[in-house]
């Protein structure tokens, strides 16, 4: 019989053991009877020979090797009985653990979903990301996206890789079937879906014939666009869809939830059909390249192959490829700086868990001491020390598991609620769910924290002086655990200080950042992107006219005060960073200073209410016939022309052949958001007129253009009227991604707010748990001193004196805790300043406030036990026991 079988059929095994031994016993007896002994004597001797039936059974059970499991079952049922007997105590423990484990599990499930989970493609570990790398650096570093011609050469030259290119050409307009609307498009190589191991929901993928210049006009729909445009009809395959003015045949539908990186794409077109000059230029780097290692190939092989190709191309095309090579690295989800923030949160929340554990440990310790007589009794009956420790740990592990189960339920609910309230705060948030990894983590955490709570009471189970313990009265058996208990309180206070101080710092930071001047007037300001008619975009003069037309029509809307076009909007994703020179002399590529360039129209300054500091802003006289002009902000004025008047100076910015003349200086705008701008890498700003950009650039620039609209205060939403104004003659121009400037400013602080909310929750939990801890420990220690206090009162101590006695004890613990906590808080402050954009170091006011809150809470928690002590009746106290 296997050990498992024996365990399951324990009853049968026990019966057989009994039968076997009884047979032996009966044989002994009958032998002795045969020798003429009396029946009583025979039985007595037989029992002696066998060494006692029950002892023998016990020894045999030990020999079976499943003893520990049987003990575990017994211990568990014993623990359940004990816990059920003290429902109040059990409830406090479970609730505390559920809070600690629940909060930690919730944060871990986010870390797991966002950071740890691999990409949702087949065998993601064999997927690679390819980049170009130069042996020289610019302000952006030495890594580049691919140029499409370089991709073709690499694809055809490697044997270890299956390569696929992705190019975000900036979406476009779907004008039929249905109303014109903007969609997210992506140009891809024909093998992308196969390479990722993703099966289309319906239809087929692109063929190699599709993926070349002049290939058939085909399109693969994203799941969501298919739902929106075709109502999820499977007969959409073969239907027509007009995208950017070209009628394309739908050949496939991507499965639901298919994402590239974290983006859900509306439609896919073959990248090989894109014959725009930018795409065919070896010096334009805009193509993302993913690859899969072929079977048996290694990353090292792939990289050596790419190195060789890089060398060949550098020789063949020195103008574009000198010093340039290619390399591959494992493809990971791109979550940016969120990674470190999430680990920070996990660290913070684990402090809450430690506090919770310290809390329960001190409760269990106090209870273990009051149970010492019971344990001594069990030891006297033959239980070994190890056995008793095991019993103790079983109980706390059980507490941990039950608390953990509760915690997981809370965590799942909390995470779901959180993501519903705040869906866009995290990348990859769709992956966050309570999956097996999370459950495993929670189970491990529960057992570990259960054992952590139980370890100190367990090892304090001292059995050396059994007789003493059994003989002693309840008063004297406690032993001195004051130090251990004080230690628990100190740990709790110290960690609570760390969390509270961090939350306070974040709060102060948020207040400070919100009070910053964004450099423009956020109220009544709308921004939206505009997609022009595809037919218009082909012709620069018509494009310029279309923009003028849109602005003119928008100005006719009564509630529109002013409107301008701009390519990059402050505090929104996207910027145009260009190098500039203040003289015609060439500068080495890696030393060129960089500026944020904004291409705009004259009314921009007025619309945004950016202050004009000197000179003039762009005006309607700046056109292709007049001198090229630019306006710079105060930061650039200081950076490019320190100590000089910038008006009338020249700048070489590489847009058009001639230098531009600086005609004005304006105030700085917080382009990188309220939090990020002060420490941004590039802060200098420059404005140049849309009317002066050369014809070849008009198309690309127009594809990126947005409008900013100042509306009259108190007017109703103008978005509907604006959409009408933008429509155009062919009714195929659209306004999309509409935001108010206020939203964008708030979003630029979203991460800080997110951290503040979570740290606030953690700090509140820490404070509550810490107070419960102080209250519990002080109550316990005071109850141990009842006889002593009784004597003091009998000898004339006043209530105030007794209260002072207890409070002094609490004060010592709190003071030491605060001291350690301050050291911890300073460390936490450094970590926060390092990780959080715009974070302010701790200031005296915040520190004082934190300490005050904690001290006040600690004394509030101490007050009840102190008061109880002062009301002890000396007569009863002395008679106790």
């Amino acid at each position, binding site marked *: 019989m296997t*050990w498992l079988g024996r365990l399951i059929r324990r009853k049968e095994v026990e019966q*057989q*053991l009994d*039968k*076997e*031994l009884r*047979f*032996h016993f*009966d*044989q*002994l007896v009958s032998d002795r009877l045969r020798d003429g002994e009396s029946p009583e004597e025979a039985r007595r001797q037989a029992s002696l*020979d*066998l*060494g*006692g039936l029950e*002892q*023998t059974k016990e*020894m*045999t059970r*030990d*020999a*079976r*090797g499943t003893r520990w499991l049987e003990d575990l079952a017994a211990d568990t049922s014993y623990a359940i009985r004990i816990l059920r007997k003290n429902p109040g105590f059990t409830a406090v423990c479970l609730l505390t653990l559920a809070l600690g484990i629940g909060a930690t599990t919730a944060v871990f499930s986010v870390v797991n979903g966002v950071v740890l989970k691999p990409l949702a493609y087949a065998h993601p570990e064999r997927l690679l990301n390819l980049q170009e790398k130069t042996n020289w650096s610019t302000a952006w570093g030495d890594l580049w996206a691919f140029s499409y011609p370089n991709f073709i050469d690499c694809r055809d030259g490697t044997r270890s890789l299956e390569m696929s290119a992705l190019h975000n050409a900036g979406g476009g307009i779907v004008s039929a079937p249905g109303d014109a609307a903007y969609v997210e498009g992506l140009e891809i190589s024909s093998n992308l879906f196969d390479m990722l191991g993703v099966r289309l929901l319906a239809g087929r993928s692109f063929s190699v014939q599709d993926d070349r210049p002049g290939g058939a006009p085909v399109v693969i729909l994203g799941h969501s666009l298919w739902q929106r445009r075709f109502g999820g009809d499977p007969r959409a395959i073969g239907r027509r869809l007009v995208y950017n003015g070209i009628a394309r045949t739908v050949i496939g539908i991507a499965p639901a939830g298919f994402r590239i990186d974290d983006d859900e794409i509306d439609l896919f077109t073959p990248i090989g059909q894109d014959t725009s000059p930018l795409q065919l230029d070896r010096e334009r780097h805009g193509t993302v390249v993913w690859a899969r290692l072929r079977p048996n190939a290694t990353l090292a092989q792939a990289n050596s192959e790419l190195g060789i190709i890089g060398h060949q191309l550098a020789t063949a095309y020195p103008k574009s490829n000198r010093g340039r090579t290619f390399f591959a690295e494992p493809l990971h989800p791109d979550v940016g700086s969120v990674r470190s923030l999430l680990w920070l949160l996990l660290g913070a929340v684990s402090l809450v868990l430690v506090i919770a554990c310290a809390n329960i440990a001190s409760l269990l310790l106090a209870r273990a001491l009051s149970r010492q007589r019971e344990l001594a009794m069990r030891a006297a009956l033959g239980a070994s020390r190890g056995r008793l420790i095991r019993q103790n740990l079983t109980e706390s592990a059980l507490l941990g598991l039950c608390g953990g189960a509760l915690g997981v339920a809370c965590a799942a609910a909390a995470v779901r609620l959180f993501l519903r309230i705040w869906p866009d705060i995290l990348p990859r948030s769709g992956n966050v769910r309570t999956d097996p990894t999370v459950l495993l983590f929670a189970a491990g955490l529960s057992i570990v924290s259960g054992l952590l709570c139980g370890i100190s009471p367990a090892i304090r189970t001292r059995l050396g002086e059994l007789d003493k313990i059994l003989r002693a009265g309840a008063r004297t058996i406690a032993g001195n655990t004051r130090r251990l208990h004080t230690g628990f309180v100190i740990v709790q206070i110290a960690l609570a200080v760390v969390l509270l101080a961090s939350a306070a710092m974040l709060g102060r930071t948020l207040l400070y950042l919100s009070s910053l001047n964004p450099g423009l007037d956020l109220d009544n300001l709308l921004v939206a992107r505009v997609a022009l008619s595809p037919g218009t975009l082909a012709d620069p003069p018509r494009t310029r006219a279309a923009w003028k037309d849109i602005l003119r029509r928008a100005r006719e809307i009564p509630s529109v005060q002013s409107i301008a076009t701009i390519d990059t909007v402050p505090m929104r994703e996207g910027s145009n960073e260009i190098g500039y020179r203040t003289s015609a002399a060439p500068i080495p590529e890696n030393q060129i200073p960089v500026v944020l360039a904004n291409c705009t129209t004259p009314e921009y300054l007025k619309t945004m209410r950016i202050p004009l500091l000197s000179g003039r802003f762009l005006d309607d006289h700046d056109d292709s016939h007049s001198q090229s002009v630019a306006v710079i902000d105060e930061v650039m004025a200081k950076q490019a022309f320190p100590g000089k008047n910038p008006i009338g100076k020249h700048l070489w910015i590489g847009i058009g052949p001639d230098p531009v003349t600086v005609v004005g200086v304006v105030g700085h705008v917080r382009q990188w958001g309220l939090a990020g701008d002060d420490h941004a890498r590039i802060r200098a700003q420059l404005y140049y007129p849309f009317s002066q950009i050369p014809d070849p650039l008009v198309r690309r620039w127009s594809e990126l253009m947005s409008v900013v609209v100042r509306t009259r205060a108190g007017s109703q939403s103008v978005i509907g009227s604006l959409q009408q104004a933008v429509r155009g003659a062919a009714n195929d121009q659209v306004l999309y991604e509409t935001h108010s400037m206020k939203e964008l400013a708030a979003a630029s602080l979203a991460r800080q707010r997110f951290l503040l909310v979570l740290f606030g929750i953690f700090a509140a939990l820490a404070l509550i748990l810490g107070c419960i801890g102080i209250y519990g420990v002080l109550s316990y220690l005071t109850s141990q001193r009842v006889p002593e206090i009784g004597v003091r009162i009998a000898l004339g101590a006043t209530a105030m004196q007794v209260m002072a006695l207890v409070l002094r004890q609490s004060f010592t613990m709190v003071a030491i805790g605060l001291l350690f906590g301050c050291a911890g808080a300073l460390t936490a402050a450094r970590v926060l300043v390092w990780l959080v954009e715009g974070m302010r170091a701790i200031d005296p006011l915040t520190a004082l406030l934190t300490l005050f809150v904690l001290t006040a809470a600690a004394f509030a928690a101490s007050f009840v036990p102190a008061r109880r002590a002062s009301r002890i009746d000396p007569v009863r106290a002395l008679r106790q026991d």
Partner: protein
Amino acid sequence: MNARSDLPQGTLDLLILKIVALGPVHGYAIAQRLQQVSRDVVQVPQGSLYPALHRLENRGLLAADWKDTESGREAKFYRLTRKGRKQLEAEAASWARLTEAVALILNLSGEGAQ
């Protein structure tokens, strides 16, 4: 387990294996046989026999079946498994080597004293 046994550690297992090797036998008979064969030199507290039997069964050296005895009562009969037989051979050999070595040393010290 057999702290009260006068036998060296592990010897009881060897003796049990040897006796069981002679044919299927129940616990009581093993105890009897141990006493008879060793002419009462080996005193095994009968209580410690069963932990040893169960341990050996656990390790797969012994197997057991319930069968009727001559007196018609059902008893648990132990028999040697193939693994048990190998173990017996190995242990018997090592026991022989050990006793030989001990005897040699004892003789040597006797000569040295003369």
